[in-house]
């Protein structure tokens, strides 16, 4: 349980979250029609096909683009897209909204499924066990575009060997030993690069 003590300190008015114009655009997963992710999921749970259409319109691009980057094939990426959304339709309970946000969760599941497809293996991850803790709001096009720029900027500023290790692990699904064999770098170095690469992304969104 988080405990927070509050004390009078007007100088904290300069805190980044209260400064500037961001303050006026409250985040929150709202669809163009004004529905939240929770409302759309509730519609899907009650068998409302319009709920699926709304969900698709919001997150299909995220799911498809990561699958396409991994698989490099539009047909295979479309199959992953279909599979991920159908899983949610058949069993909406696999996503527990109290344990994370839907957009990031779909992105992680899509990547897992695409890697499974790439490596021609049976699904290794039980998607009901995947909990994703993430801050950026992926629901709106504008928020997503801003986050995308930030991610690309962070990756662009990494040393190329680190970015390469991270991309090989992420988009090619290679283990650290496979990356080490391909690049000739020591195992420990690869491990460190992958972790610090992910942490650099986190840090970029924490400021």
């Amino acid at each position: 349980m988080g405990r927070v003590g509050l004390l009078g300190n007007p100088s904290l008015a300069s805190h980044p979250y209260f400064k500037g114009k961001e303050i006026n655009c409250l985040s929150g997963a709202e669809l163009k029609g004004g529905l939240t992710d929770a409302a759309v999921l509730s519609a899907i749970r009650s068998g409302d096909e319009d709920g699926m259409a709304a969900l698709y319109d919001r997150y299909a691009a995220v799911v498809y683009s990561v699958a396409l980057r991994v698989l490099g094939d539009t047909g295979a990426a479309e199959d992953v897209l279909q599979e991920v959304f159908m899983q949610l339709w058949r069993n909406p309970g696999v996503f527990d909204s109290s344990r994370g946000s839907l957009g990031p969760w779909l992105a992680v599941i899509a990547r897992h499924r695409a890697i499974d497809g790439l490596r021609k293996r049976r699904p290794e991850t039980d998607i009901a066990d995947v909990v994703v803790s993430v801050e950026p709001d992926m629901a709106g096009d504008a928020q997503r575009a801003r986050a995308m720029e930030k991610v690309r900027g962070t990756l662009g500023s990494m040393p190329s060997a680190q970015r390469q290790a991270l991309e090989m692990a992420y988009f090619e699904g290679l283990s650290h030993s496979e990356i080490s064999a391909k690049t000739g770098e020591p195992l420990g170095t690869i491990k460190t690069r992958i972790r610090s690469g992910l942490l650099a992304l986190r840090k970029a969104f924490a400021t």
Partner: protein
Amino acid sequence: MSVHEQFGEDLALYALGGLEGEERVALEKHLESCAGCRRELEQLRGDMALMALSAAGPTPPRRARQRLLEAVAREPKPGAAPARVGWRTFVPWVAAAALAVGLVVVWLQNSDLHRRIAGLQSQAAQQQVELQQAREVVSTLTASDAMRVTLVAAKTPPQPQGKAFYVRDRASLIFLASNLQVLPAQKVYELWLVPTSGAPIPAGTFKPDAHGSATVINPPLPGGVQAKAFAITVEPEGGSSAPTLPIVIFGVGE
């Protein structure tokens, strides 16, 4: 709660699905008992979701939407009843056999139900006890005649203070304030949850009593938001969707 540094790199590989063999077994065993490392795993998956955005750009072909919606229409709706079977095609001896099998199944289910009912009764009794304890806590916190005492270092002039208790997974928030100034009419205090990223989220409005004390119990909040801090501002009655400066009191999570 912190991550165990010796597992830090393995956690990243595990999140990516690249940890194998003994290292994987050892980490999974550790995760069973370490909430700090489980939390770090969730964070790493969040980092992975960010990584996915680096691939953003391509959009699926238009036919993909139609294909999905057609597939959805073909699937049985969640919770829908199964299709009826044409029972007239069964010959009587099949029916008799089915009845016998059915009786056995019903008997087995009955035994199972008895066991489940006993389990549920025990669970319900436990929940009743927990509920009673929770009610007592909340009633003490919110009682109009409760004496609220703020302890500070001797000779410290009274200053506004607040204490927030927040459980992210349940989106549950309890906030207690003291020594707040009385506000003019048409003004209220508003509590804000400041997430680790993004704009502050309104977490309820309140007016303190004559002694400057106030309580906010479980305001409506979205689930799973990681809080970085909490803050109080003065807002017009009914509250605002974005905080009005200056901040009255502010606190960052421990």
